[in-house]
């Protein structure tokens, strides 16, 4: 195996362990008795004691941690207190809309951001550049739920172009359900576009200063061709890095956006579970998203190999 690959894979272990410790500490140091939360207020003391033993709460805290860690490693997040099905199964049922929303958001935001960023970089210091910058600061600052409601108000309520909320009837054809994802994805895309535009702009400006750009121009290639073919392609590594790092931001946005637009995905599940105090689901979701973040950034690092032939570890 490629030694770099091995080292990179091994480096995720302490990260995953830290995630586990942090989540465990937050859950177990929280005030309140998990057994009481599961059994409900009316449970008898004997019932509580049995549940505590079953959950391993009568063991030492260190032992509890390793038991818990073992369960996590087997992807056993326990069962939902509300739906009474394993958390993993619940995540599987609700992941569809979330994945679709995230992918659609990226499909909208990446091309827009790369275009705006490269256009601004090519005209550095001009009015276009300033306008793109101002737009980026603005759309990065307006919170996703404010954008969401503005879109609902304007496009759904005033103009009636798109549905307001929800997913429509479950048996509706795919294309008609797609309409329900347009507003949430556009709302989420604002923040992503802002972030990616700034990174693209900086990366393309850096690339434009490289010698190969001068060479290409000296050989008579048009500036447009040099910009889009040479500079933008060489800016790909920082852009992909930010897409990976901004995944955490996107997840936060998805949680809010699914709540605003009543999409039955994992984000809405998170909020509903928190409000219903369905702790196993909350814990499972936090763990799941953190692992996903680690995995995506691992993937991004591996993507470098494909994107930039100069990188050989």
């Amino acid at each position: 195996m490629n030694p770099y690959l091995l080292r990179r894979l091994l480096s995720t272990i302490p990260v995953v362990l830290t995630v586990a410790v942090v989540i465990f500490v937050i859950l177990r140091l929280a005030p309140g008795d998990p057994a009481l939360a599961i059994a409900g207020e009316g449970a008898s003391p004997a019932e509580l004691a049995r549940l505590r033993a079953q959950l391993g709460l009568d063991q030492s805290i260190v032992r509890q941690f390793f038991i818990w860690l073992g369960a996590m490693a087997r992807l056993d997040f326990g069962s939902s207190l509300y739906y009474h099905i394993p958390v993993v199964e619940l995540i599987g049922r609700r992941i569809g809309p979330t994945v679709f929303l995230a992918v659609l958001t990226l499909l909208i935001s990446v091309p827009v951001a790369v275009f705006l960023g490269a256009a601004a970089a090519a005209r550095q210091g001009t009015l276009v550049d300033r306008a793109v910058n101002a737009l980026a600061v603005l759309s990065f600052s307006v919170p996703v739920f404010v954008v969401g409601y503005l879109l609902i108000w304007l496009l759904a309520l005033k103009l009636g172009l798109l549905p307001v909320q929800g997913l429509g009837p479950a048996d509706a054809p795919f294309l008609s359900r797609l309409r329900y994802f347009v507003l949430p994805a556009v709302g989420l895309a604002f923040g992503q576009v802002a972030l990616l535009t700034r990174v693209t702009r900086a990366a393309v400006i850096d690339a434009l200063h490289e010698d190969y750009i001068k060479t290409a121009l000296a050989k008579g290639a048009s500036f447009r061709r040099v910009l889009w073919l040479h500079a933008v392609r060489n800016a790909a590594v920082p852009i992909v890095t930010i897409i990976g790092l901004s995944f955490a931001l996107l997840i936060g946005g998805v949680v809010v956006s699914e709540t605003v637009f009543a999409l039955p995905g994992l984000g809405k599940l998170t909020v509903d579970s928190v409000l219903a105090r369905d702790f196993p689901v909350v814990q499972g979701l936090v763990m799941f998203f953190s692992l996903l973040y680690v995995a995506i950034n691992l993937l991004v690092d591996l993507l470098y190999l494909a994107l930039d032939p100069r990188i050989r570890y």
Partner: protein
Amino acid sequence: MSSTTLSDRPERIEPPWRDTLRRLGRHGGVRVGGCLMLLFVLAAVFAPHLYTIDPSAMDPTQPNLPMGAHATFVDLGGASFERWFPFGTDGMGRDVYSRVVYGTRISLIVGVSVCLASVLAGGLVGLLAGYFEALDGPLMRVMDGLMAIPAILLAIALVALWQVSLATLVVAIALPDLPKVARVVRASVLSVKTVAFVEAARMMSTPRWKILLRHILPAALPPLAIQGTFIFGAAILVEAVLSFLGVGFSSDIATWGNIMADGRNNFNIAPHLVLLPGAFLALTIVAVNMLGDGLRDVLDPKSSAGGRQP
């Protein structure tokens, strides 16, 4: 050689921070962002004097008044007064304008507390990791782990499990920010650690804490200021998200997030209940980000998003 340098030295050397301050004052973004922030701070401080009433006072007989309505307000204590409602009332008959103005307080308090907490704690971690090689690996791996947990999820889970209070909110929002601060501080510590003046101090057997505080920490201050500003803005946003989702402060304490949450149910008939506090929130964050961008342009031109100057 040393004699010439001594005699060439000008009479008085202007301290470098004065030039930095002047350049900050000339920066457009800093000016606009700073003025906006000043307005919000003034609104928070003088909230009781800005034509507001008690933000929790309600008249259940006057719910959902439109913007700019005139009405006789009878609160639950029986006190009655004539009032103009610039932003109307919410579904429970509370004055939305007063709630929005008072909401500024929570946002700024949370923003400042989170900023201080994460800068202090993250700064300490970064300083230790950067200066003591033995601590670097373990501390930064922990930071990598913290970074992997999506901030909003961590905050939601923390606040939901622990009782909601200012302290819980601050910890929940500051915790995901620790790695960012720690990384920035660690990087600047590493960059000055082997510079001559620090070596000199070490050779003169200056105590370690003194080297850290007097010689190394100052190098980390500009990036800390930049990072701190962005964290301040992000904290205001996360607090609003938490109240909006219903896990933050309950609506007894008016925050921009819970005003919006309360207004959601009436969104089709009274969109201003959501959009007005949303606008205040957005404007605050725009101001903070402009300030942060300006600070970065002036204090750290190399890493500024402006890229290289032509």
